[in-house]
């Protein structure tokens, strides 16, 4: 008797199942049967304290620098707590002012006239008029090429093409394999590297982030098959997230980049940001690994949680070897 009644009650959960299926199918159809990033938890901006530290660290002497904060004039955009709230932005404005910076807030107004001669642009609210800004026009009026995205509202590629240094300060929650710039870069590598070739992946310098979404080698490894990708100690880097932390720690200790020389390229493969090239010479161990595994390419990267074209550079091995070993290498 009890079992029969419990069974009837259990059958009610069929409604939940139906709702789940209708939602899953309906929302997917609404997004053209592709996963859409705006269905995930929204990006989380840096709070006022961290944002102040982040922005002032961009300049050796921040005093006198001009910053334009692109924020909204709609009350609903300030409703969330944290870095994008009215309180958060007021605090940021005050603290940057205390650091000697000249702060302008757009409050929904057109960005281009306000961006004239500014040193850094900060996106606080992804309003349509700001999301669709033409980076080339911005680059033409700004004094310094620095753009900070604190709400995940911009794609870095367009800024890269305009020669603007794009920095993403917001925390992103959609899965890293959905990053369009990673996809763009993977397509570029597929076009450039023959299928039978091998690629040695080497970080530019210190791994500055422990964020698990910074493991871009995972989606690239899948996207670039059947090309062979090699990583240092992959048994740590690709395992569970806490083992990945061990990999970061072990790599920091190993620090092969300390024994190498940074190489500034005169021309880059995909990115237009010449000063940000992650390229360097190889250590003897790295050269030996490249030969042992018969790789034809080296993929340098800067370990960051947001995929940014400027942080990635693919170079033929022969060219990298021509730079020399360790600190004896010369510029390209």
């Amino acid at each position: 008797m009890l079992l029969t009644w419990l069974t009837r009650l259990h059958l009610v959960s069929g409604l939940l199942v139906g709702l789940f299926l209708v939602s899953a199918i309906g929302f997917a159809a609404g997004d053209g049967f592709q996963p859409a990033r705006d269905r995930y938890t929204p990006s989380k901006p840096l709070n006022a304290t961290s944002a102040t530290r982040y922005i002032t660290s961009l300049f050796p002497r921040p005093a006198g620098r001009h910053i334009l904060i692109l924020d909204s004039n709609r009350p609903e955009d300030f409703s969330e707590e944290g870095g994008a709230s009215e309180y958060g932005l007021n605090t940021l404005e005050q603290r940057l002012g205390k650091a000697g910076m000249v702060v302008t807030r757009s409050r929904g107004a057109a960005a281009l006239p306000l961006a004239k001669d500014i040193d850094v642009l900060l996106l606080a609210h992804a309003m349509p008029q700001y999301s669709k800004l033409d980076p080339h026009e911005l680059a033409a009026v700004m004094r310094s090429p620095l753009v900070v995205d604190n709400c995940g509202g911009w794609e870095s590629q367009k800024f890269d093409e305009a020669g603007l240094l794009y920095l993403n300060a917001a925390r992103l929650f959609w899965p890293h394999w959905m990053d369009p710039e990673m996809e763009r870069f993977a397509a570029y590598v597929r076009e450039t590297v023959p299928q039978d070739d091998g690629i040695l992946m080497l970080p530019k310098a210190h791994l500055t982030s422990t964020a698990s979404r910074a493991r871009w080698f995972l989606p690239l490894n899948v996207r670039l098959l059947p090309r062979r990708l090699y990583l240092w100690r992959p048994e740590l880097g690709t395992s569970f997230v806490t083992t990945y932390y061990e990999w970061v720690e072990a790599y920091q200790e190993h620090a092969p980049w300390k024994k190498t020389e940074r190489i500034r390229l005169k021309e880059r493969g995909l990115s237009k940001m010449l000063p940000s090239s992650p390229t360097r010479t190889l250590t003897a161990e790295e050269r030996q690994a490249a030969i042992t595994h018969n790789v034809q390419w080296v993929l340098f990267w800067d370990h960051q949680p947001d995929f940014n074209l400027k942080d990635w550079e693919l170079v033929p091995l022969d060219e990298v070897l021509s730079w020399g070993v360790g600190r004896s290498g010369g510029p390209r």
Partner: protein
Amino acid sequence: MTFLGGLIFLVVASVIGRALLPRRQHFLRSRWEELAVSYLLGCSAVMVGLSAGLALGISFHLLFWLPLPSALGCAYVLWKRKESSQDLAPCSFSRTTGLTLVLLGVGAVIATLVLPLNEFDPIYHFGYRGQVLLYDGSATSESITGMIHPSGYGRMVTHPNYPFGIPILEAWVAKIGGWHPRWVQIPLAFWTACLPLVVAFGLRPRGPRVATVGALIAAVTPMLYGADFLIDGWESLSRAGLAGEMMLGGGGDVGIACLLALSLSLWLRRASLGGWHLVALSALSLAGTGQLKNEGLGLAACVVLALGLGALLPKPHQGKSQLMPIAQLCGFLVLMLGPWLFLRAQLPAIDENYTERLTISNVAHFWTAEELQDRSPQAAAGKMEDLGVSGVRRNLVAAAFFAEFVDWRSWGLLWLLFFCSLPVTRRRMADVDLRQLCLLVLGATTLYFLILLVTPWNFPSLRDKGIPERLLVHLVGVMALAIGTALSLGKPDQEQA
């Protein structure tokens, strides 16, 4: 073309599976039951057969062709049998129940395919291997085995000793039209739709009402589709099918639930035919679970133990000894899983190596040990202030299991129903089937508890990733079989077939 490849696979697997089944006249099943059981048996046969070929060093490019002549041969056998639809048993379901199951099943298939592969496990654990098979043609190529090298540099692969069942299915479909992250999921899209029919098939001897209720119990369990739906209120609606809680599709856990339930259903029905035929099919299905995820091997061991113990316990109503069929099952299992174990031994075991980890000394240690806070992501990131719950590991794991048992959003009342179905009365205790099913669920739950007790990871961070619910979902079909069996004992006169 990949879509077409998926459709061809559905036909190939179904034809192979149906030819493996005994004749309709000798072994009763409805049309719907036959479709589901045939497809799952065909999937198992393809996975087990091709995995054995890979273990022997035969290229996947060659093995790809094996199911096609096999299906042709099976089609010839079926043609020679001259079975008609009149030989099929009547469907156990009423029109309303049938319509409900069709709606849920079709919904599950569509919900799986509306998005391309979009979760960590399906992309990195299985999609990667599927592409390796497609391009390299080998399960032991450097893409899988080249992780650890004296140079310090190696190839990237997550959980390198994971089995090749799902990759085989995906690569087979992709072989026809190229790798397409949406359509390679076609063979995996039917797990959830098949499970209720498998339960109905297993419960058929207990009567149509019991078969119907068992199928419905399985079909409406939310966990077969996704976990923790609506946990964040109505906002969760917009994330349905997106997050890691999604169970449909390429993750393999619902596949294990299906094949495990099929193995037990065939076992329960072996008495109707006698001989070793259904025992062999039960073993094939169980070997299929071993091809889906690492847990499949542990579950196979649990099945053998549960069947053995269930048969050995006191029998008020003496029946035919089950020891011989159990011995046959073990023999078939060794034959079918042997090649995979041979192949597995050649793969690097860097993590999830629980056969080594699950020792008495480890269990004794973690029974009283504190949670490994230093292994948490927060500790590793230096955010000690953000550390989550702490305490004795045993209590944390037990609390997580209890939370799952009462989580109606994920399970409905399935666990409560199961606990109410335990063989605690003399009448139920006399039913060997119920004893074996319940022992299996309890044994597998205990196994998962022990695995999580000795895990080298931080348990709260595993909890955030859907553990243990993603393990417990393996048991949904078997629980539905157990509940149905217990229900059949309540009103024997009306329900016995």
